[in-house]
């Protein structure tokens, strides 16, 4: 928006002398006035904490046991890269994201959406309802349900026993897989909804034309459906990944990152450093590194989105 918007001819015509130009100042001010509250609020409550956060990451601020914090430069970051527990957390975060978000939520969501397209209405409503329920549940409740499902005396082992299969203490032997599964269980609904909407947008004629040309189901999927919903895939991947990267409550409730750090993803590591070891500065630095991981993923997806179909 510019001050001269009501007089479009002014932009093209040579500028009249200053004395003849419409008064700019007050016009701009009055028109931007309604924006001021939101800008102030954003600066205050969004930018403020972020700037403060970045500052803390460069100090050795502690929650307790320290009289005065001091600026330490990049110490927190170099420390992180020499910290085995941090590298372990990065690795687990990547495993968790790839398994639960990229492979799990995304693929399963697409599969569900594709199947539901062909299903009869009652089946569609029922499936949709069940899947969405998992998504509607608060994170902590979902975490607790899955804790009860996976634990040694839990439902899963009861089922395995009944089938005469060897039972496992899932939360102990394969904690990262258990929490990944939990995340898939909880987050698939979102992908399913996105893909359902996208699939409905594909014009019937194109699919029909492909069918007439003799393309089978798999070829139609690969050559018609996927390219046409490519943008939705990009958006969905981005949202899913960012959400999964910051999952905390689910894992905290199920395993607390244990045993022995075997399900400790970056958000849990960050929490442990900042609030249990009282190293607020170090914890914040880790949080910024997590932000970096997130933006790397986002960059890849943004590229995917940019290319025209």
């Amino acid at each position, binding site marked *: 928006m510019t001050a001269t918007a009501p007089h479009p001819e002014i932009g093209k015509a040579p500028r009249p002398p200053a004395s003849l130009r419409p008064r700019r100042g007050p016009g701009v001010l009055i028109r931007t006035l309604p924006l001021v509250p939101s800008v102030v609020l954003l600066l205050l409550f969004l930018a403020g904490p972020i700037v403060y956060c970045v500052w803390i990451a460069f100090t050795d601020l502690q929650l307790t*046991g320290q009289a005065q914090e001091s600026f330490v430069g990049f110490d927190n970051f170099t420390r992180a890269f020499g910290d085995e527990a941090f590298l372990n957390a990065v690795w687990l975060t990547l495993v968790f994201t790839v398994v639960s978000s990229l492979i799990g939520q995304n693929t399963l969501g697409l599969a569900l959406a594709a199947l539901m397209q062909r299903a009869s209405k009652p089946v569609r409503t029922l499936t949709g309802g069940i899947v969405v329920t998992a998504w509607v549940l608060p994170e902590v409740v979902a975490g607790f349900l899955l804790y009860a499902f996976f634990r040694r005396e839990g439902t899963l082992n009861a089922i395995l026993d009944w089938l005469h299969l060897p039972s496992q203490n899932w939360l102990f032997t394969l904690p990262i897989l258990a929490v990944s599964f939990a995340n898939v269980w909880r987050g698939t609904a979102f992908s399913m909804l996105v893909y359902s909407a996208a699939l409905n947008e594909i014009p019937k004629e194109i699919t029909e034309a492909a069918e007439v040309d003799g393309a089978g189901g798999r070829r139609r999927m690969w050559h018609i459906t996927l390219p046409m919903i490519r943008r939705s895939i990009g958006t969905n991947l981005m949202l899913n990944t960012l959400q999964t990267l910051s999952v905390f409550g689910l894992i905290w409730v199920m395993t607390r990152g244990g045993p022995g750090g075997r399900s400790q993803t970056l958000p849990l590591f960050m929490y442990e450093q900042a*609030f*249990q070891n009282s190293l607020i500065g170090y914890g914040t630095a880790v949080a910024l590194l997590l932000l970096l991981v997130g933006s790397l993923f986002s960059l890849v997806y943004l590229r995917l989105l940019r290319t025209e179909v």
Partner: protein
Amino acid sequence: MRPTAALTPFLALVLAATTLTACGGGSGSDPDTVKVSFKQSTDNSVKVMDTYLADIKKQFEKANPGKKVELVPIKAPDSEYYTKLQQMLRSPKTAPDLVYEDTFLINSDITSGYLKPLDAYLAKWPDWNRFIDTAKAAAKGEDGKTYGVPDGTDTRGLWFDKGVFAKAGLPADWQPKTWNDVLSAARAIKKKVPGVIPLNVYTGKPVGEAATMQTFEMLLYGTNDGGTDPLYDKNTKKWIAGGQGFEDALGFVETVYKEKLGPDVSDALDPNVMTRVRGEWLPKGELGIALDGSWLPQDWLPGSGHEWPEWSKKLGLAAMPTQHGQAPGKVSMSGGWTWAVPAKAGNPDLAFEFIKTMQTKANAQKWYVANSGIAVREDVAKDPAYATAQPGIKFFTDLVRSTHYRPAYPAYPKVSTAIQEAMEGVTTGDTTVGEAARGYTDALKDATDNQVVER
């Protein structure tokens, strides 16, 4: 400048000012209300502290007309309680007037400047002279000032189930002389009484300080000569690197979990295992031996939610032995909690008045008994009504003679976490004892700015 031109900056200012003050106006301290923060049990049926404080609140409000007490319970496991409290103490808007502080953390919080020295108040309070010296020192900062009034102390020992022991062919007056005696009793239980957890020792980060103090230090302080502090060298003011004693103590923990003498590892690393030990395993006879604190019966007293008056008949008590039975033959650790006034408290004077009400002889005695605490007031300790109020009090009070205090210096909480990490490693079997001890030494250097000495 035209009048409208000045409007934007002006409006921005007004907006910023109003939003800022809107956050600031929140809690503001009322001069007639004293806010008291304490740790509420994560077990909903345990109301020991709630009941006691409600009673004191009534007394206080009656004695000080016009004044009000607002109880601000923090319901969290130990480690999260500390964090929440520290966050509240950072700002005058959230700082309560009185807080319940663990002696383990108090030095660290003093260094952070979260607490107010109480010397001026204590000098004018005659009852302070009734407190035993070690207790007075519990909340003393490195600057020599006192920052908290202890409400009791505790000791630690072995609790054992006489029923389980009878089935395993072990004596009802069991008193192990060495660590091996403890382990062989556990092995006997494992062999002869299936379905019972032979021995519980807390371990790993999920239980926090309980793993360090109830288990690790109870072992570590019984190694070497059983006398000098194995964690901190007072002369050089340096922390001691993981040596032979440290490895032996880790070895004990490793043995317990490797031979499956303890609870299932996933249960041991569950943050709520402490609640299960006292609420479930011991009362139901599912646990043979528990290395635990003197305060356990507080959960079994009338009004606690799961009364278990027969506990004194069902459970036996034994002192934790030193490693090879070296003098003095037994080990105990002592800690305890104190009442402290935050530096940013709005009503420190009124807060201290509340401490005084809590610490009259009658109220202090009531609390020691309700909390299964060990008295820190001499007059109460000598009172026969206290010594006989509960079975076990005499046993645990006698342990005070062979007890140790933690080197609760500012770095201690981080040292404690390093110990818990080493324990967790050997518990899950991820690391060997040697690796865990070396990991501890590295973490120790990190936590204490290299103030570490090899021994």
